[in-house]
């Protein structure tokens, strides 16, 4: 497939030589199929910008928009519209004249401008979508549109853009055109910069193609860039977590005091959940808004921009249009029974990051590996329980503080899942003995421990309800990060239980759920009237539930200082960061899953 006159054929040959290795290492999918995957040249641009970014987008299928990618799309609005011009094909340089020479002659002398053309080169293993192709007889010049200004550097362009353009040139050459230079058009400057495809650039482009294929075949994500000025402008920064990952990878003694972490994530998410608990409500779509109606009367209308998830309790109806639109925007719909039982979740097509799910299943299947993570979940939970008590009691004198510290130490050394669960149970018992008397503003029910199914007193009713909100929140988060929430490490999979969400919930129970319960009672947001007792079982009324959901959502929006990274983030973001760190751990990037514990 390689033209003998090609000076760079050796490096291309190298890439095909790597194929058997790819087939050996890739035990999970067909290796030869992987090797034949054509790399889109846009991905080659990303890989040149940052190898990790190229890997995340192409191999793991991650994608996120930011203002730069959106402005880029807007700037491309004309060249992204394919015209229907017919362009005569050229005789390919690598097939021996089985295409008619005359075809190309008809184009000679004519100059053609064509937009949005997709071509590929099997020899180079790349596929390109050309923004604009300028044809003058057999000479083809690819023109690539770039959103910004002409860079103020000697080359008047950035390397990733040059490599991308050169790859387009290689594709054109493979399709029989003569292509010795390309043009970068900078939209903001309205200027063209001519890039000659010299030997050095062609060699660099081929080298990067080989490296990219190797990284994909080895199934090992390249490390993050270190303290790079590229990161703040990258749309995948929230997925990649460059500084966080680097900090957790570095041996402890090499880390200077805390200030190395840049705050690259927004502290709060813009969109918030939408809860619907009116029985018989109808959820529809009007333009880009979600509307909630009851018997034809509008209860609320929310911009889709403001919705992060929709939670429906009991008998709530959805129109097909709203379901399709929510799916398209990757906004999940959580379905619960009126009583709060988790029935299911409606999402768009499942997450593309298959690699992560494979590692999750492998780890869950290995009892030793599963136990290692489970220890962190439980130790984190006990530590956070202890912190809550210490703050509320205002002293460390109480024996329970020392007991919890001891349970935590033993949890970290637990040699089996049963021991771990036993320790968790004992810690929970002595924790709740102290927790229940802290609650005021409610007629004394004389409870000193958890009871459930159904809860028999108001405090347990609220705890159960808030735990279900937390589990829901983590299920949604884990799903969006690419996990299967149903398969856990500590909680064994059982029918209909989101076990991984329950695992990750452990460390957040005291921080989010217990503290919401404590505040909702002690601030008087809920009182005796918020409950209904039926034959010994106690449940929240509609109004009571609304107050508890509001308190929970306020807590999720509260900003705290991250104990490891030192920046301010909301709990909602913390859940996402923890899920992503768990992913980093499972993918072998960091040594230990760092449980989230406050001081």
């Amino acid at each position, binding site marked *: 497939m390689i033209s003998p006159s090609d000076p760079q054929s050796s490096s291309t040959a190298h890439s095909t030589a790597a194929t058997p290795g790819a087939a050996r290492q890739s035990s999970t999918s067909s290796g030869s199929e992987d090797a034949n995957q054509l790399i889109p040249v846009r991905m080659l641009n990303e890989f040149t910008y940052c190898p990790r970014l190229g890997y995340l987008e192409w191999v793991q299928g991650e994608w996120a*928009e*930011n*203002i730069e990618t*959106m*402005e880029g*799309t*807007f700037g491309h*609005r004309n060249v992204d519209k394919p015209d229907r011009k017919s362009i005569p094909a050229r005789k390919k340089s690598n097939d021996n004249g089985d295409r008619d020479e005359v075809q190309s002659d008809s184009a000679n002398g004519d100059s053609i401008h064509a937009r949005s053309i997709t071509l590929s080169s099997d020899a180079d293993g790349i596929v390109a979508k050309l923004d604009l192709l300028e044809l003058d007889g057999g000479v083809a010049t690819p023109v690539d549109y770039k959103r910004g200004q002409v860079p103020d550097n000697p080359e008047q362009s950035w390397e990733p853009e040059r490599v991308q353009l050169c790859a387009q040139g290689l594709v054109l050459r493979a399709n029989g055109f003569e292509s010795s230079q390309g043009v970068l058009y900078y939209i903001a400057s309205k200027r063209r910069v001519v890039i000659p495809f010299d030997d050095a650039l062609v060699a660099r482009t081929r080298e990067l193609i080989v490296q990219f294929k190797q990284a994909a075949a080895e199934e090992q994500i390249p490390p993050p860039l270190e303290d790079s000025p590229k990161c703040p402008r990258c749309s995948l920064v929230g997925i990649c977590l460059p500084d966080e990952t680097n900090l957790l990878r570095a041996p402890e003694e090499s880390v200077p005091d805390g200030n190395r972490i840049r705050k690259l994530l*927004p502290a*709060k998410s*813009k969109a*918030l*959940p*939408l*809860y*619907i*608990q*009116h029985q018989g*409500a109808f959820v529809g779509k*009007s*333009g*880009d*808004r979600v509307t*909630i109606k009851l018997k034809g009367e509008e*209860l*609320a209308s*929310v*911009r*889709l*921009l*403001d919705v992060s998830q929709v939670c429906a309790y009991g008998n709530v109806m959805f129109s097909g249009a709203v379901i399709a639109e929510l799916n398209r925007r990757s906004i999940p719909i959580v379905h619960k029974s009126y009583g709060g039982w988790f029935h299911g979740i409606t999402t768009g097509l499942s997450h593309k990051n298959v690699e992560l799910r494979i590692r999750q299943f492998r780890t869950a299947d290995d009892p030793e590996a599963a136990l290692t993570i489970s220890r962190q979940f439980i130790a984190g939970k006990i530590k956070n329980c202890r912190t809550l008590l210490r703050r509320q009691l205002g002293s460390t004198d109480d024996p329970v503080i020392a007991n919890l510290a001891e349970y935590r130490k033993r949890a970290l050394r637990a040699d089996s899942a049963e021991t771990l669960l036993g320790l968790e149970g004992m810690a929970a018992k002595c924790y709740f003995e102290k927790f229940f008397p802290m609650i005021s503003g409610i007629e004394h029910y004389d409870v000193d421990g958890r009871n459930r199914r159904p809860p028999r007193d108001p405090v347990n009713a609220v705890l159960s309800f808030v735990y279900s909100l937390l589990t829901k929140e983590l299920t949604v988060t884990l799903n969006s990060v690419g996990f299967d929430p149903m398969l856990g490490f500590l909680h064994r999979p059982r029918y209909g239980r989101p076990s991984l969400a329950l695992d990750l919930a452990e460390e957040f129970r005291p921080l989010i759920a217990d503290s919401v319960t404590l505040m909702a009672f002690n601030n008087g947001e809920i009182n005796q009237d918020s409950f209904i007792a039926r034959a010994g079982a106690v449940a929240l009324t509609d109004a009571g539930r*609304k107050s508890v*959901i*509001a308190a929970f*959502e*306020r807590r999720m929006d509260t900003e705290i200082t991250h104990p490891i990274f030192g920046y301010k983030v909301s709990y909602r973001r913390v859940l996402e960061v923890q899920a992503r760190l768990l992913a980093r751990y499972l993918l072998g990037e960091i040594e230990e899953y760092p449980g989230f514990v406050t001081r």
Partner: protein
Amino acid sequence: MRSVYLIAYDIVCPKRYRKIYKAMCGHGDAVQYSVFRCELSDMELQSLKDQLWPVMNLHQDRVMIVDLGPTEGRGDECIEFWGEPRSLIPDRAATIV
């Protein structure tokens, strides 16, 4: 993170008006006829422009976009209403119905 934008439009043709009005409703709240108050991030503003641009006829229609400043700051304080706005301005909180 988000800023408040005051966006007003004159659209000549009823068919285009309808489309512009719908796009505007998805991005903000009508405070007067043809005047919207929109809380948007830079990406959301771009997505609004993406929607308005192909619909408008720039020879006949007009859109004005005024950046009033960050939501938690000037953007929230600099509007004074006399009479009731056409729709209420929502709080930043989860919607529970």
